[in-house]
């Protein structure tokens, strides 16, 4: 008796599922015009801006909250946001910001200069609050709201970052209830009214591991976005994400791998967009590992302390081949550590660039005394401390990155061509961090993503940011090449106080010139951010920077405010695929029919089986 009951139950479940085939797709189609869905591979770790660290979390913060000023869409120049204007005193020590009037929080409360002062003071005084935002406020001595529209900040020394304070302004009337102790555990998950903020969107719902749903902030002070619902869906599998884009479940995909990106070629209604990006990969050298006080540590190969060897290796690495063969062409050969995306700050070595030339590399090594031994491997010059030691380098790659492993293979081959032995090893990023910190390596492959403000990136080459000792153990700091140069450090200190952008850019370029000449890194390439979107449905994306920077996940919410659904007029213009949309409609109708028929047959079959089984039981009893 239990078995027929079970079959019947299964049939009921199946029947119950059926309406969904029709219901699901029908409701989907109606909402699509106003809901913009982004697929991404990383969940938000925390909606509390003092806690989260992953980039997807920062995307939510900037959609939900505002900053004083923004990085412009076209070229990263500072532009007004909550502060509509600002003034700096002649000595560069006092900054006065005028806050927009009439701004409301999403719950209807007025936003004033007092909220701004509250947020900054909280970050400056709170230990926990500083972990995410401390780097923006270190130079600030005091922040004060002199009236509802005016914030006055005093700085300890003139600072170029005062128009780039990426601190999210929080509503005092909400956050004053979350004290210094509670804030560490505060998740800031949205209530029924969403997370109270002043940004163009409000986070309404967060289903962990699945999606974050935002709605347009009807109280937003700026021009209201055309999209009403904004959904970020999390995919743990890039192939599924690509399928969802083909299927039209999502409208935008970011940060795709090159294989997946290529697979979207020719997909109906999908436009591929390889955006120039601010990330680079490098081959780094151990130029002489030491602690911040100068005490040598580690066991790096002595030959790599010699700038001439590093330059020779730079000549032996074919960066163009790496772009072609490792990135599938989606990138640019690398030179200096500030990517060309930041065109005002990027240093271009021009004619003095290290061209790929193995013969030149071999000549430089010969000249410097690193001659080949009988086995074809070069040795340390005669007469030196390590005379006769082979040029045999450990080269570490990262297990989590295909790109890294391939780069390591290529570089190992090229170095062998010029008589340098390479021992490649692939390790986890975690293990690599530790190895780097202790200086027990010769070369490794890794990368950085560079912010519009160059300070952080440049600081990774200062003497002070080498590893440090604490309680008997050595810990890694920001520096991973152990580069240390007096002139460079002096320029670093200088650029920290240069308010004039052009003047500062000069210093920043000079620092990159030193780095390029000294070659603690061989910057192998600047990789593209591979994006794809449904151009049959949405248009109006604004790249940052113009003309081919990222369309989403920018500094600021520019694109989200300019994206709009494709209209009949756009279609008449002929560019966006009208055909795809029509096809979708007919095929989804067909599919629904097929599903209903198929499901019906299945359920019918099960019911039949159940009935047929019941009969003999009656016969016997």
């Amino acid at each position, binding site marked *: 008796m239990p078995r027929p009951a079970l079959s019947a139950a*299964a049939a009921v*479940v199946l029947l*119950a*599922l059926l*309406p*969904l*085939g029709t*219901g*699901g797709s029908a409701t989907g189609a109606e*909402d699509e015009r106003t*809901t913009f869905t982004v697929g991404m591979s990383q969940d938000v*770790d*925390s909606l509390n801006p003092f806690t*989260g*660290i992953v980039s997807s979390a920062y995307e939510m913060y900037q959609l939900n909250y505002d900053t004083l000023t923004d990085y412009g869409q076209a070229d990263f120049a500072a532009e007004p946001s909550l502060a509509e204007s600002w003034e700096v005193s002649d000595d560069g020590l006092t900054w006065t910001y005028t806050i927009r009037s009439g701004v409301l929080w999403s719950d209807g409360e007025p936003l004033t200069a007092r909220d701004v002062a509250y947020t900054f003071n909280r970050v400056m005084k709170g*230990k926990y609050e500083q*972990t*995410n935002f401390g*780097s923006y406020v270190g130079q600030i001595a005091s922040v004060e709201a002199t009236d509802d529209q005016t914030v006055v900040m005093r700085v300890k020394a003139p600072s170029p970052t005062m128009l780039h304070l990426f601190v999210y302004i929080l509503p005092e009337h909400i956050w004053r209830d979350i004290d210094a102790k509670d804030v*560490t555990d505060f*998740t800031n998950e949205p209530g029924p009214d969403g997370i109270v903020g002043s940004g163009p969107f409000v986070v309404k*719902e967060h*289903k*962990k*591991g*699945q*999606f974050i*749903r935002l709605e347009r902030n009807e109280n937003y002070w700026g021009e209201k976005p055309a999209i009403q*619902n904004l*959904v970020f*869906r*999390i*995919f*743990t*599998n890039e*192939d*599924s994400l690509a*399928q*969802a884009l*083909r*299927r039209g*479940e999502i409208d935008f995909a970011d940060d795709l791998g090159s294989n997946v990106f290529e697979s979207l070629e020719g997909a109906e209604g999908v436009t591929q967009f390889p955006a120039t990006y601010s990330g680079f990969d490098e081959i780094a050298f151990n130029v002489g590992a030491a602690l911040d006080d100068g005490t040598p540590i580690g066991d790096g190969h002595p030959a790599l302390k010699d700038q001439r060897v590093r330059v020779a290796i730079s000549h032996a690495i074919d960066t163009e081949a790496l772009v072609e063969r490792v990135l599938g062409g989606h990138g640019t050969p690398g030179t200096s550590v500030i990517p060309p995306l930041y065109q005002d700050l990027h240093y271009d070595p021009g004619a003095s660039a290290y061209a790929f030339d193995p013969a030149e590399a071999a000549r430089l090594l010969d000249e410097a005394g690193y001659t080949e031994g009988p086995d074809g491997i070069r040795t340390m010059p005669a007469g030196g401390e390590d005379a006769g030691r082979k040029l045999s380098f450990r080269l570490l790659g990262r297990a*989590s990155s295909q790109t890294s492993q391939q780069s390591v293979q290529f570089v190992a081959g090229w170095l062998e061509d010029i008589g340098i032995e390479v021992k490649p090893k692939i390790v*986890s990023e*975690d*293990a690599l*961090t*530790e190895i780097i*910190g202790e200086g027990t390596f010769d070369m490794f492959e890794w990368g950085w993503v560079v912010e519009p403000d160059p300070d952080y990136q440049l600081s990774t080459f200062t003497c002070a940011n080498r590893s440090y000792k*604490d*309680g008997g153990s050595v*810990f*890694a700091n920001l520096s991973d090449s152990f580069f240390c140069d007096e002139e460079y450090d002096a320029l670093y200190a200088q650029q920290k106080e240069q308010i004039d952008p052009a003047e500062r850019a000069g210093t920043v370029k000079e620092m990159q010139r030193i780095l390029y000449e000294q070659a603690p890194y061989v910057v192998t390439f600047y990789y593209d951010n591979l994006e794809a979107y449904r151009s049959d449905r949405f248009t109006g994306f604004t790249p940052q920077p113009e003309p081919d920077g990222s369309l989403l996940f920018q500094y600021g919410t520019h694109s989200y405010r300019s994206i709009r659904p494709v209209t009949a007029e756009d279609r008449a213009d002929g560019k966006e695929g009208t055909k795809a949309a029509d096809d979708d409609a007919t*095929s989804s109708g067909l*599919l*629904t029919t*097929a*599903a209903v028929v*198929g499901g019906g047959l299945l359920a019918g079959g099960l019911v039949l089986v159940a009935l047929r089984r019941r009969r*003999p039981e009656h016969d016997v009893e």
Partner: protein
Amino acid sequence: MGYVVRRVLTGLGTMAFVLVFNFFLFRLLPGDPISLYTRGRNMDREQLRELRRELNRPVGEQFLGYLANPFSSGVDSTQFSRPVWDVIGDYVWPTLVLLVTATALSAIIGIAIGIKGGWRRGSTFDRTSTGVTLTLYAMPEFWLGMVLLILFSTGVGVFPGVFPSGGTLTPGIEPWSVEGVLDQAWHLTLPALTLTLAYLAEYALVMRSSLLDEVRQDYLVTARAKGLMDKLVRRRHAVPNALLPTITLVFLNIGFVVSGAITVETVFSWPGLGLLSYQAIRGPDIPLLQAIFLLFSLAVVVANIVADVAVAALDPRVRT
């Protein structure tokens, strides 16, 4: 009942071992958890020192703390900055739903196939079903999942792309409304189907072979000689006896499906424990990983005990 007590005691012993092993396993891992936790954060050395002091407590002291609360020994998940147990709580339900559905479906369908095939050994049905289930068994789960996803979510040729490509719920739908429940069932279909197909073969084959053993037994000859209908001989006499190994298998699999769901959950972006462990490994998020490992091991041990006790209840022969 002596048997049951013995089984439970053995199980508890295994759990104790797992508990201790799990603690030391994760302390053997290389790497500095604090630099992982603080990557990308602006912390001064004083703060780092404080965090390290917490981790550098004597091992004995840490071990006692761990025993008192094995799932979150005072250290938050490094990825989510929340107590480990809270994080697991968010992810455990989707896995349970998927697991129970897939186990129930694969057991019911698998057993049915096994009975039909075993009873008429060598028939067309037997040969076809054995071939098909073995083929399904041989397929890697993630691959099968990917194929189903492309066929029935994206849609290729005649195949209807009607199912969602991932998640458990369409954003914006109230989860506990009628529409929401149906929507969740709709999302469940493909991942559950993948796991069902993958686990089907085991049940079908075990059921088939144990039925084959019974078919040759004397009591079935007797039953037939009494003039009972073939169907009744099968249902009343052969199947109940042949079911025992399959029941053991069902429970054993429950323990393993939890971890086996990792790949399927990854394919379908199903926010369950499998996915969470994948994320924890990618981090790596050691506190979270440790708790998940413990949970998975305990699931296997508990499933084992339940299987033993259940079989003992059904079959007096094993109680001795």
